[in-house]
């Protein structure tokens, strides 16, 4: 069921990607729908599932963007693993916790891409810091809104009971 949800989410993210590419070509510089999807999925705390979700979402993003094939798959897999790892240790519930995970995920994603582009293409991403800040803010805001809507209409699956409760 969770995979089906992920697949639907992936299709929605791709739809959003296509829409934005068609009508607002620079909009994807401001937020990344795939990161939102990955964080939402990985907050379940399933590390293996998070890895495959990151690969799938990243490859789709790579296929429909001009980046090196595998670049976003790599970065999103790292993000997904990191978020899932944190969530396997802590019980993070609610919109604020989701927002915090998103911020961390976007920053990791951008840093990984920055490093990989430097290594593989020997190129520097211009205005990297500004771009990262803007993308973090907008992705976080949009993602929290989406999360709020999803929690209104969909019931989240129970999170692993072995994890410890936190103060979030």
């Amino acid at each position: 069921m969770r995979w089906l949800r992920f697949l639907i989410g992936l299709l929605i993210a791709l739809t959003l990607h296509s829409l934005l590419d068609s009508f607002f070509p620079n909009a994807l510089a401001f937020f990344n729908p795939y990161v939102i999807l990955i964080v939402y999925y990985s907050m379940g705390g399933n590390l293996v599932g998070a890895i495959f979700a990151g690969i799938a979402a990243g490859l789709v993003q790579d296929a429909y963007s001009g980046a090196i094939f595998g670049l976003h798959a790599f970065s999103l897999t790292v993000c997904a693993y990191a978020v899932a790892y944190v969530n396997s240790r802590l019980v993070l519930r609610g919109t604020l916790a989701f927002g915090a995970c998103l911020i961390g995920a976007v920053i990791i994603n951008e840093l990984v891409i920055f490093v990989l582009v430097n290594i593989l293409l020997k190129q520097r991403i211009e205005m990297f810091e500004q771009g990262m800040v803007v993308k973090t803010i907008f992705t976080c805001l949009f993602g929290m809104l989406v999360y709020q809507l999803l929690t209104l209409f969909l019931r989240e699956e129970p999170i692993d009971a072995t994890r410890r409760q936190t103060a979030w």
Partner: protein
Amino acid sequence: MAVPVDVIPRRPTLLFIVVLSLLFILMSLSSRTRYLGETRTMFERTVMTIFSPVPRAVNWIGQSASDMYHGYLDMRHSVDENVQLHQKVIQLTTENLKLRQSEGDLKRLRGLLGYSEQFTMPTTMAQAVMLDTSSRFKSIIIDRGSSAGIQVNDAVANASGLIGRVILTTKDLSKVQLITDSNAAVGVLIERTRRQGVLRGDGGAGAQLLDIPSLADVQPGDNVQTAGIDGIYPKGIPVGTIVKAEKGQELFKNIAVRPSVDFSGIEEVIILHTRKIPGEVVRYTP
């Protein structure tokens, strides 16, 4: 058969490292093919093919929405254009009517002007503002009065012929008695035979020619014009056409005259400032 939970590690660090390594190799290959000019690998093509319906559907929806929007805009534009064209048609039709009216006015005024030029006395143009031809007393009101030099007993005519005489003036308006009024009398002559008589209005739409002897040569269709003998109307203005000439009971004929002017459609008129015969001359007795 369900896979035991213990088989799948809770923290699959090894799996994570393997995946990242594979992805790194994939990226390296991809970046190498880029340098060779092949922008898409087979794997990339496969992923694109699997998910291609999504961008195609989005593109189709976007295109359809765009077409609908532009179609709607075109329709709105056409509606606006249609309204503007309708207004233009109304405006041009109105303008056309005005021009037709002006053309008619021009012809009529040219006729009047040419007609007035044949008179040696001063003339004034005026516009009929009221027509009272329904009662027995036939009159019209014109928009020129004493301030324009109009006096009582000035003759009034238009391009068709004699209308009547001024019987009352104010500063800005004048009243004209029509020749069809039962109290109006005009000294006239029959154009063909030069026989003179007196034309008197019958109170209706016509007039009667009086004082024409029974033996005189008068025929229907003869034209009648002013004789210039009454001290009011100058000589030679068309008055009307004889429509009936019968032998009367006494010495004179009964002659009906149809005025040459259509009194129901009078617009512009010419006031002829005729030289009046002084009263003492009229009253002179040797």
